[in-house]
């Protein structure tokens, strides 16, 4: 049975982070139109999942915005509707993203009741000043408390996000933060460098030179500390920005990197799937504006803004680019799914691959036909990819 994933974008937030480039809106003064939004999501869900009845739903991911602001019963409706169209696997992973503010933390039990199996909390940093500067309305202590509570309800299924590279952050501060959160960590952590995205308030701040971010070399040191410290605590650095106790990797995200098909619903959500009627690989995205998206769903059954066909060449490239973000890399077997049988060694510039192997950046196992990065290679993987991919 072909595995499938569902992504649900819930676009409202009570506070807006200065670095966030996702499509979102502040909760309106008169409150969120829960029923309207849910109804639109359900409409879009039905339209988009119907063609994939023959598949099995491996994961659902509620992202946004702040999905933990949604009503648990709406979440339940969506999970039920999904299951009725594409049956959930017995070990399906259903993740909900949450912020550490108390109102949301209190709803955990209800979300569990609604069907959520995994919790992901946005801690980002323990430094209260940085949190405030970034527009986040919670403290570091609240972040840790949220993780502790979640672990009680979702043992072994809690993850949280940490960001390094804030203005003024020293290596020492970062290491101390990491040490503290690792004491509270469950089975999964995501660690990213603060990225300045066009269109965000942080972007404007940087351009106006109101903010100065750490140098390339300092952020390299911070990244390396994360690898070292998380690995020492028993987490496997299974993807560039993700660490897990073996067996607790994020099933949903692995799907992205391993080329699994998925449908995204909600404003700005992306989808990537093979259209059963044409057998073409499609990449599509929903309208970003919440109101317009909702209107389209009401009128047409879905709010798709753009849909393009992914060529075989593109698919092959993607398979390698994303495969090599994982420490397990990519094998011919998985590559065959998009290459129509072409092997990795015929597709890639193997002379260059060999050079990187010799220099300690890549590992090539010809018996298994598996190409994977070393830790050192992972750190500079973007440079390597440009070189080895045709």
């Amino acid at each position: 049975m072909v595995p499938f994933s569902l992504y649900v974008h819930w676009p409202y937030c009570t506070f807006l982070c200065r670095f966030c480039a996702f499509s979102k809106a502040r909760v309106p003064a008169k409150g969120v139109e829960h029923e309207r939004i849910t109804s639109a999501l359900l409409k879009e869900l039905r339209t988009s999942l119907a063609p994939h009845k023959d598949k099995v739903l491996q994961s659902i991911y509620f992202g946004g915005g702040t999905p933990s602001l949604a009503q648990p019963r709406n979440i339940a409706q969506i999970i039920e509707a999904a299951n009725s169209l594409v049956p959930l696997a017995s070990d399906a992973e259903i993740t909900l993203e949450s912020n550490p503010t108390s109102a949301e933390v209190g709803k955990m039990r209800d979300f569990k009741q609604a069907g959520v199996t995994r919790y992901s909390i946005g801690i980002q940093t323990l430094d209260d000043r940085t949190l405030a500067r970034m527009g986040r309305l919670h403290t570091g202590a609240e972040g840790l408390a949220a993780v502790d509570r979640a672990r009680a309800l979702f043992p072994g299924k809690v993850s949280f996000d940490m960001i390094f590279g804030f203005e003024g952050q020293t290596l020492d501060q970062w290491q101390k933060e990491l040490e503290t959160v690792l004491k509270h960590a469950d089975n999964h952590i995501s660690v990213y460098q603060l990225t300045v995205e066009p269109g965000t308030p942080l972007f404007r701040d940087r351009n106006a030179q109101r903010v100065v971010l750490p140098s390339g070399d300092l952020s390299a040191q911070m990244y390396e500390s994360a690898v070292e410290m998380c690995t020492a605590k028993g987490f496997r650095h299974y993807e560039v920005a993700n660490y897990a106790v073996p067996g607790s990797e994020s099933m949903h995200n692995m799907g992205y990197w391993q080329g699994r098909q998925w449908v995204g619903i909600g404003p700005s959500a992306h989808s990537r799937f093979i259209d059963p009627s044409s057998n073409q690989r499609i990449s599509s995205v929903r309208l970003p504006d919440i109101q317009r998206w909702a209107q389209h769903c009401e009128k047409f059954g879905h709010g798709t803004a753009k849909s393009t066909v992914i060529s075989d060449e593109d698919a092959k490239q993607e398979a390698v680019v994303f495969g090599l973000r994982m420490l397990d890399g990519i094998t011919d077997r998985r590559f065959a799914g998009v290459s129509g049988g072409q092997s990795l060694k015929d597709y890639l510039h193997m002379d260059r691959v060999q050079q990187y192997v010799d220099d300690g950046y890549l590992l090539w196992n010809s018996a298994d036909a598996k190409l994977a990065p070393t830790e050192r290679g992972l750190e500079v993987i973007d440079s390597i990819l440009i070189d080895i991919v045709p």
Partner: protein
Amino acid sequence: MPQMRVIDRKKETDISTYPPDLIRNFSIIAHIDHGKSTLADRLLELTGVISKTGKNKQVLDKLKVERERGITVKAQSASMFYEYNGKKYLMNLIDTPGHVDFSYEVSRSLAACQGTILLVDAAQGIQAQTVANFYLAFGEGLAVVPMLNKVDLPTAEPERAAQQIEGTFEIDASKILHMSAKTGLGVDAVLPSVIENMPPPLGSIDQPFKALLFDTWYDKYVGVVCLMAIKDGSIKKGDRIVSTHSKQKYEVTEVGIMHPEPSPTTSLQVGQVGYITCNMKSVSEAHVGDTFYRDKHPVEALPGFVPAKSMVFAGVFPIDADEFARLDESIQKLTLNDSSVSVHKETSAALGQGWRLGFLGTLHMDVFRQRLEEEYDASILITAPTVPYQIKYRDGTTRFIRTPADFPDIHTMQDNVESTMEPFVLATMIFPERYLGQMLELCTLHRGEIQNHVYIDEARVLLKCRLPMAEIVSDFFDKLKSKSQGFASFDYEESGYEASDLVKMEVLLNNEAVDALASVMHRSTSVVAGRDMAKRLREVIRRQLFDIIIQTAANGKIVARETVKQLRKNVTAKCYGGDITRKMKLLNKQKEGKKRMKKFGKVELPQEAFLTVMTKSE
């Protein structure tokens, strides 16, 4: 180039009614921007050759690059008919290139004329090129008729300019015409002045056909088109003519005048100037300065020209070695119409197959590069412009150094070389007196030897200085302009070779010399240049997965060192479903960028690296 049309016999004009005394062959010489092209336009309008609409700006500047830079690159001619005092005259305006780099083309065109208008901007007065061109024309025995232009400008000082002309060239100031080519004021007096003050061409219709070939271009339909000045006799379609130089015979397929586009005539006669097509296949067969005669009626050859000497050399290489064949074709096509570019194929250990091209000057080179990139869509690497240094060996032989690779190594230098020599130029600069200090300093800074300076009027100085040519081939002209706030003008001529302490500057990346970045320079500049080069290379070379040590060495001795530290980490941000499309786009864009890099060993060099070596920072 002007398009050749299929001949239409009915449309041929008969110009046999114009004997020499009703013909004037003249050109306009001037300093850049003094209004030569505008005046030419006005005269063409006046005689009805082009219509009086706004679209006719600078008709003769046909090439895009000419219009952009406001300069004439190719000399062309235009024939006009003009009635004066009851008689109809045939006036042939022979255009001349407007830049010192093209003085070769200027002298070729002048040989086809009997007189020239010396056009001087009434606001700017005499400039260096005015002087240079005057002496060129004077040397050819031409009648020089000075005229003042732009008298309409509020800053114009016609009396002063006229006095300058009288003072410098000993021409009666009261005889100088005042005009504004832009507004048309005084322009009607120009042609009458040409008729009155310039002699008609000499020669006899009864003598055997004799013509001077003074320019050519290549047309894809008819082959080579030759511009000729008929010195004796006449010529028409069907005649057989012979080149004195190659002794090759050709049959004339069409003759005509440039009006301003090619217009066929029944014949061309003594004193007239026009074009001839004769199934000549390649411009290499046409030797400018050649004398043509009728088959079986040889004549005494006219004094010819010495081929143009290249002054500035640059290496040209395709960025992508696979593009060599296409670039070869493009360069051949471009040089078809510019025989003053010298072309030598060259192979560089670093950059593969390419060429060493010789130009008349940096402007010539720059115009060529622009045309190659724009008209032929070429992606090229241009390596440092060099001048032809010479090595004198102990056994008396000399050898040119055209590329830094030719520079002898230390052992050869010690054992076999007597001296290294560099070419010098004699430069003429004219500028307002208040910049004298700056100009003197500029010359000394560039190893110049001041010859003399004179006041050409109460406010302006003419400075003559002998400079190493190497010092003027990059940014000398720009510095001259900026230090004089644009007022200084500049011209130069060759002035032989002198012994000079030269060194080869090499760039090493991780201890390997990169041939393509090598250059030859005077020892005195080597330390500063070496340090500067290393610093600037460090800025343009992007971090790679290993440390890159940049070193510059003069004749083997290290003068500077910089390091580009290894890349420790890319920005490996998170990447989930919604990021896929964007990430792939970015990746492919970076791949494209990589294609424009050249790899030397493991080190990737962007095009900027080569430009860094070419130019000097302040």
